[in-house]
């Protein structure tokens, strides 16, 4: 029985042993050649090692690149020194330490640039078989960018399980087939590459389209694919710009909603509006620090939610005080209101600077707002941008509800449309004024919470947004939330679409000049109030 088992098993073991030794023997020849004198042979050996996909070759290749690879002239074997301990020599083929060799007698293997390039490629291909999926993914992306061995990629693709790596390998394989494969394979590769429109695939297929040596049919196919890629890229670019424009528009809208209320409803030019935003951002900072100091770490992610009411009340209270203390004396003199509120803004900036110091304050994104995803090739959408867009729409909706559906909103609109008549029917106009101003300021404070998540928090924060938000309100039409929404989104999208064409600053200048010209045509904005209230 034992004999029988032995008879059955022995050949299996023998075969297994043969396979193992044979495989090891496969790379022993190129490993030996690595330490030779002939550069061409070394390049060939390096490429063979890369194509073989045997991770055992990695230390030797790295050693060669670092100048730690030697040939022992006594027996012709390749050795390398341990990167951590130069005196410890290791046999490249067995991977075992070697003793009793005189280090001075060894011949160091020399390399040149061509060989260095080959080593980089070979190492990249070998990483395709790494045990770490992230490394394999990086290697696959590298192979897609800089080309890789068709054979190694095929073997890697066959063995790969990780979905993201499979995808990356498929692209890399298609790229390799496009340059190295048969004509049929190349044609198929064009189809597969064209399905993923990106600047990289455009480049790869473009090379085939321009390749005079390629068969005519293949070039035509490449050209057709190029047209479709261009179109997809153009649409993708448009979508990306549109998203960024809407993102910028939502920031502008947040900054401008409060202004639309104070300027639109009350006709007050509040130059300190930007400082209300700044106060909101600093409230966020204070709440964040309080959470850090007094609450368990697990609660930290909630600080942003807690900051919203705090910022609303801080900015709202300052706004209320500002209206009662200064602005109400200046209602008949809009230009002087402008100057007085500018003075207030200088004071508020200096107060904040005295308390918190001039340098930027660091505000952390809560974990649920960090990160993002790749919506389109090369276009990342971050969660904080999405959160701001949603937040801004909620704020807009709430403000619209307050204006349309509450008694306070009704009084506010009555005062806007005809102050004296509203007063005559018993509305306390100065109470409405003060509360309206506080509401507008409070909303600016909440905008500050949102803006603290995407920009620097400094005493000058408000100054960045003040001119833009005025332009949004004026452009959209005073006293009109819909106009403010349209104005903000238009300005945001136009800015972002102009940016790649003209550059960030020039784009902004073009927009400014366009608004200045637009104001000549429609001095009271896109959605101007009509009738008596327009003569205010």
């Amino acid at each position: 029985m034992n004999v029988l088992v032995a008879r059955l098993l022995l050949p299996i073991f023998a075969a297994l042993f043969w396979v193992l030794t044979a495989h090891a023997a496969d790379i022993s020849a190129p490993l030996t050649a690595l330490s030779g004198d002939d550069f061409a042979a070394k390049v060939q050996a390096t490429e063979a090692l890369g194509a073989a996909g045997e991770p055992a070759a990695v230390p030797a290749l790295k050693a060669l690149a670092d100048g730690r690879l030697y040939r022992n002239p006594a027996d012709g074997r390749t050795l390398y020194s341990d990167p951590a301990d130069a005196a410890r020599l290791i046999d490249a083929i067995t991977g075992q330490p070697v003793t009793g060799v005189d280090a001075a007698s060894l011949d160091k293997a020399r390399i040149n640039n061509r060989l260095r390039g080959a080593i980089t490629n070979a190492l990249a291909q070998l990483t395709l078989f790494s045990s770490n999926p992230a490394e394999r993914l990086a290697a696959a992306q590298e192979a897609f960018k800089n080309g890789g061995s068709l054979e190694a990629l095929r073997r890697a693709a066959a063995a790969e399980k990780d979905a993201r790596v499979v995808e990356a390998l498929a692209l890399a394989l298609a790229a390799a087939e496009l340059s190295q494969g048969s004509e049929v394979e190349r044609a198929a590769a064009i189809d597969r590459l064209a399905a993923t429109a990106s600047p990289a695939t455009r480049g790869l297929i473009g090379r085939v389209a321009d390749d005079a040596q390629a068969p005519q049919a293949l070039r035509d196919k490449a050209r057709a694919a190029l047209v479709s890629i261009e179109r997809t890229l153009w649409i993708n670019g448009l979508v990306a710009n549109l998203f960024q424009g809407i993102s910028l528009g939502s920031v502008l809208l947040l900054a401008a909603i409060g202004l639309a209320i104070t300027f639109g409803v009350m006709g007050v030019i509040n130059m300190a509006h930007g400082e209300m935003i700044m106060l909101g951002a600093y409230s966020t900072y204070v709440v964040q620090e309080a959470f850090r100091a007094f609450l368990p770490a697990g609660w930290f992610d909630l600080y942003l939610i807690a900051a919203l009411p705090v910022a609303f009340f801080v900015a709202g209270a300052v706004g209320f005080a500002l209206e009662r203390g200064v602005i109400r004396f200046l209602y008949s003199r809009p230009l002087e209101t402008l100057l007085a509120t500018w003075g207030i803004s200088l004071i508020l900036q200096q107060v904040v600077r005295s308390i918190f110091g001039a340098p930027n304050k660091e505000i952390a994104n809560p974990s649920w707002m960090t990160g993002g995803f790749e919506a389109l090739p090369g276009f990342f959408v971050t969660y904080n941008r999405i959160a701001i867009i949603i937040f801004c729409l909620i704020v807009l909706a709430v403000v619209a509800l307050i204006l349309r559906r509450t008694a306070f909103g009704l009084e506010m609109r009555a005062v806007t449309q005809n102050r004296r008549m509203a007063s005559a029917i018993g509305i306390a106009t100065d109470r409405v004024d003060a509360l309206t101003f506080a509401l507008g300021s409070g909303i600016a404070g909440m905008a500050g919470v949102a803006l603290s998540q995407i920009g620097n928090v400094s005493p000058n924060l408000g100054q960045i947004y003040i001119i833009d938000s005025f332009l949004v309100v004026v452009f959209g039409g005073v006293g009109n939330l819909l106009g403010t929404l349209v104005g903000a989104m238009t300005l945001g999208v136009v800015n972002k679409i102009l940016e790649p064409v003209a550059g960030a600053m020039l784009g902004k200048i073009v927009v400014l000049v366009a608004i200045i010209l637009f104001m000549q045509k429609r001095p009271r904005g896109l959605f101007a109030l009509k009738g008596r209230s327009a003569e205010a």
Partner: protein
Amino acid sequence: MTVPQTSVFGARFWIVFLLCGAVLLVAVPVMNLLAAPGSTFSIADHVIPLLGKYICFALLALSLDLVWGYGGILSLGHGAFFGLGGYCMGMYLMRQIGTRGSYGNAILPDFMVFLNWKELPWYWLGFDSFAFAMIMVIVVPGALAFVVGWFAFRSRVSGVYLSIITQALTFALMLAFFRNEMGFGGNNGLTDFKDLLGYNLQAKSTRLWLYAASVIALGLGYIAARAVVASRLGRVLVAARDAESRVRFIGHSVVGARLFAFTLSAVLAGIAGALYVPQVGIINPGEFSPANSIEIAIWVAVGGRGTLAGPIIGALAINGAKSWFTGIAPDFWLFFLGGVFVLVTLGLPQGILGLASRLKGMIGTPRPQAAAGE
């Protein structure tokens, strides 16, 4: 609101005017040159360019008052005209540096060599000539004001809308001048000037002459503004400020009067900028910042808008206070300035001169008030 009906260039005016001129033009240089250093009457050398700077600001404030105080048009972009005039002068001064720059290039200013530019952009041509540069000091701000004003006044943009537009204008210019590709030195602006018309800018005598030129410019600007205000056009300007529709219905050209005043005002601001640059030795895009332009308005408001002497007093007072504060307690300067903005608009709508004439009215016989209301 009434404009004084008595002859605007009467004997009393000339006495006061020449007296002030004599103090600024004769007494100051004499105290600088002749008084023993350290004595009570001595004015130190470094004070002369400072005074010159204030005088330029006074001219700037006067120019804004012409459109705001008399026309009711609050331009928040007057810093732009000031800056443009300054850049024209700066370009001339840059070209005078010649081979004395760090790179020793006879044609190109240092920053262009640094940016690897090969030749002078076309808009720099001609600025090696002083006369051409001086014409540009007048033409560039004037033309911009004419175009902007023509568009704005024709479509009856006024009040806060005009303020916002002019603010956006100076903001756009600031962004533009920050760009290196514009060819105006970007962030750093134009600086390291050597001499003007061959005279070394660091020399004491040049500084005195520049100071004197600023005083003369202010005097001429004052006379010009007074002549305009007293003219028929000035009356239309003031009337349109108080009742625009009525003036229009009577048949006067509101657009024409405003356009003339706005353009003249921009030219005066440009001249102030051109005199300012050689005295401070630098011009950079910061001059276009909207905050600067708003500050001009407060000089005018403090002194008393709708009076011509008021803005001059206001500019000197606020800038004097600024120098004093930045020396003693820089952190409090913004509190002070902010406080001035609030208190003057709330409590002193007619400014210092308004207060003075009110006090005078309480003491002596009431006389026609020269200050303007809303």
